[in-house]
């Protein structure tokens, strides 16, 4: 079972990495969810698997009677699940907000902080797609109000 679970972890990891390498931030988000699950399984499996014996102390006893499951990784995984959820909620809000402001979920087009100095690829036909590109460097972006209208996202939503 341990070996099979290790293989499953490998599949989860590979899928999550492939998703996180996508330029679409929604897929990136999916990858993040998978990565979180995979990491939790890694912690859990490292503490070994014990079937049918939860780490509880019987009434009247001072310590568990017989072998029970490893409590330590369970505590760690509990924490990790919650933190992973916090991270996910924040990332979700960030993706949503980015889409509202920039009108794109393509990370290539999110160039507001680090504009591409020379136009290297044809930007998205929608002017709101690449508001970070200086208007002077790109003849298709002569409408400078592109940077101030976040309505592009809403229009498509």
């Amino acid at each position: 079972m341990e070996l099979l679970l290790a293989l499953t972890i490998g599949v989860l990891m590979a899928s999550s990495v492939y998703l996180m390498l996508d330029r679409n931030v929604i897929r990136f988000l999916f990858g993040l969810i998978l990565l979180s699950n995979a990491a939790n399984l890694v912690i859990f499996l490292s503490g070994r698997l014990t079937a049918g014996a939860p780490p509880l102390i019987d009434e009247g006893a001072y310590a568990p009677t017989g072998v029970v499951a490893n409590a330590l990784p369970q505590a760690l995984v509990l924490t990790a699940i919650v933190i992973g959820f916090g991270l996910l909620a924040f990332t979700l809000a960030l993706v949503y907000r980015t889409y509202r402001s920039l009108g794109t979920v393509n990370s290539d087009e999110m160039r507001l902080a680090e504009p591409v100095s020379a136009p290297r690829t044809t930007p998205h036909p929608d002017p709101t797609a690449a508001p970070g590109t200086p208007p002077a460097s790109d003849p298709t972006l002569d409408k400078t109000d592109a940077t101030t209208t976040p309505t592009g996202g809403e229009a498509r939503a």
Partner: protein
Amino acid sequence: MADDYPKVDRVMGGASGWFSIALPAVLFLYFLGLVPQIAETPQVRGIEWVPSLGIGLSVLLDGLSLTFALLITGIGTAVTLYSARYLGQHPDYPRFVAYLMLFMVGMLGLVLAGNLISLFVFWEVTTIASYLLIGFNADSAKSRRSALQALLVTGTGGLILLAGMIVLGTVAGSFELVEILSQGEMLRDHPWYLAILLLFLAGAFTKSAQVPFHFWLPNAMAAPTPVSAYLHSATMVKAGVFLLARMNPALGGTEAWFWMLTLFGGVTAVFASVMSLRQTDIKQVLAYTTLMALGTLTMFIGAGTHYAIMAAMLFLVVHSLYKAALFLMIGIVDHATGTRETGVLGGLAKAMPLTGLAAALAAVSMAGIPPMVGFIGKEFMYKAGLGLGGFGAIWVTVMIFAASVMMFVVAGIVAWKPFRGELRQTPHAAHEGPWPMLAGPLVLGALSLIFGLFPGILAHYFVGPATHAVFGEVREVHLYLWGGINMALVLSLLTFLAGWLMYRRHEAIRDRLTRIEEGSRVNFDAGWDRVLDGLKALAAWQTRLIQTGNLQTYMAVIFASFTILVGATFLLRGGMGSGINYQADGIHPIQWTVLALIAMGAILATITSSRMTAVAALGVVGIGVALIFIMFSAPDVAITQLLVEVLVVVLVALVMLRLPHLPVRSASGFRAGHAAIAAAFGILSTLVMIAVLQTPFDRRLTDFFEIASWPEAHGRNIVNVILVDFRATDTFGEIVVVVIAAVGAYALLRGAPGARPTPEDEEPAQVAAADKGEKV
């Protein structure tokens, strides 16, 4: 030039002016009082600074450092007195004084330092002060460029020097100069000797502007004239020479030392002399003759005989006296007439007699005419050069002869031509300078004469002890004006003859040099610009390469690095262990099913181009993971996982509705490179996991929690006890993280400029709140 600023009414620069004059004057008197004592025995004093690193603020007082200290404070007094009048009404004069005092302290620290590291710190202080002073007229782009150029050239040299000092300190086992200087023989035979030497020379040659690093010094003349006189002639640029002299007992005396120093020094001296003839701006003429002096000093320190060291120390003093006086003199002329062009100036002797006197005293010393001390300096340089053996004697003598001839010519250009003949028309009517500006050049000029007439004082108190410090052993130093008829005197006479002939034709020579320079393609200054442009292009290139601003690239680099580093460690450390012992029996069909569901869910989420399919697939994975927790005795974890998973699916689905559809798979396509990284990452995870499972299991922590849970924390659910009792602080930290995430998400969704809050907008914020509630 010095007059086009709004004037502030200050007498002698006000309080800052008087302070700036008093400080060097007091220090000068203090150092002067030490002279008789130090002439007999050098001293080391000091306090500890960073004892754990062997760095002390020790002070090494010997003939060399004291001579330098007297030059720094003495010329410093003349310069500050001069600047109080020259710049005292400048609105930024207090800033100027601050820089100048910073420089003076740095320079004094440099020459007095008894520890290599503290020497380096002061070395850098002078570099920075020089940068600030050259760029004093910060409105001028030329000033800023020159300042930056000086900073970059000398700063780079400084860093190389630091490397050399660290290597030297490591080899010698100490950063204290006294201990390093006493280990000369060991150091010269050490295999790292050449490396140390080259690193030190890089530092010294950039600071003292030896060819090919000379170009920053003439540009540094963008600084106000007193700064040029002080930093870029009399003191700072000699720091490199000082370093060479200081290190001579430790590093000197080898073939490499001799040839590196005499070749670079000789080339610099002659190249600079020729270039100085080419200039028409008298300040530029003087700047190039400073280069000549620095080259000469380097050459003689390299020659290394007792006579050569003595000649170097003598010329050091001689040059500082006459060059500072000449710079200050040309400042007065500039101030009074509004120009420094040699073609325009003439006949100033009648209008400015005292300035003319100072110029004459300094220039006669520069030309090496008796009875000035400059004559003695030149005689001893010839003697030292002739005293060397073999090719070295010819090289040094020829170089010094060429340089001396041209110094004679330059002396005529800067101090004879502007003052003789009829008074010419200048931008301002020429008039005599005020006394604070005249005092310095006159005193310095007079000293050139006094030391020439009474060389015994110089020999006993300054040149002798300094030579002793540099040469490493005590020998009699005897200076004299008249040494009888010998080869040096013949050379001197030849120098005068050749110099006089050249002076008569110097304008024609200049024209020819100008034509040669214009036709030449070697231009160090332009080369510097090309180096800088190349550096910027390199920086831009590597920024584009590394910081693409592209999330995809960053992620690929991170995952690939992780895979390569962990994979390499795994292979090198034998992570594969004893192989895999696999038992497939005993696995319940339900377990097979759950694992298969997880794997298929993950793959489906990866390949689908439907958002909702992906969300559902992720839900399958999450529930599958929860089932694993249930099967393997983790009910608490399973419950949390189920709750969170449901929440995640709902939230993601809700937000998805407001985000665009995923692009059709063909749009982004199958990314083979990324798939390779992902596959490698996944395989490595599995392998590492298997390796972990094969290591012996350490249950110590778990045992502790099992035994302590009830007696110490009165809890029967061990997982809960760990979370809320033993590791309660961690749980608190976790809650803080969740709160920060909630606040961040809320701020993102509500504070959006331009994003109109709609009822749907608030849902993700509730998400975060719900998340908090779930945990509590």
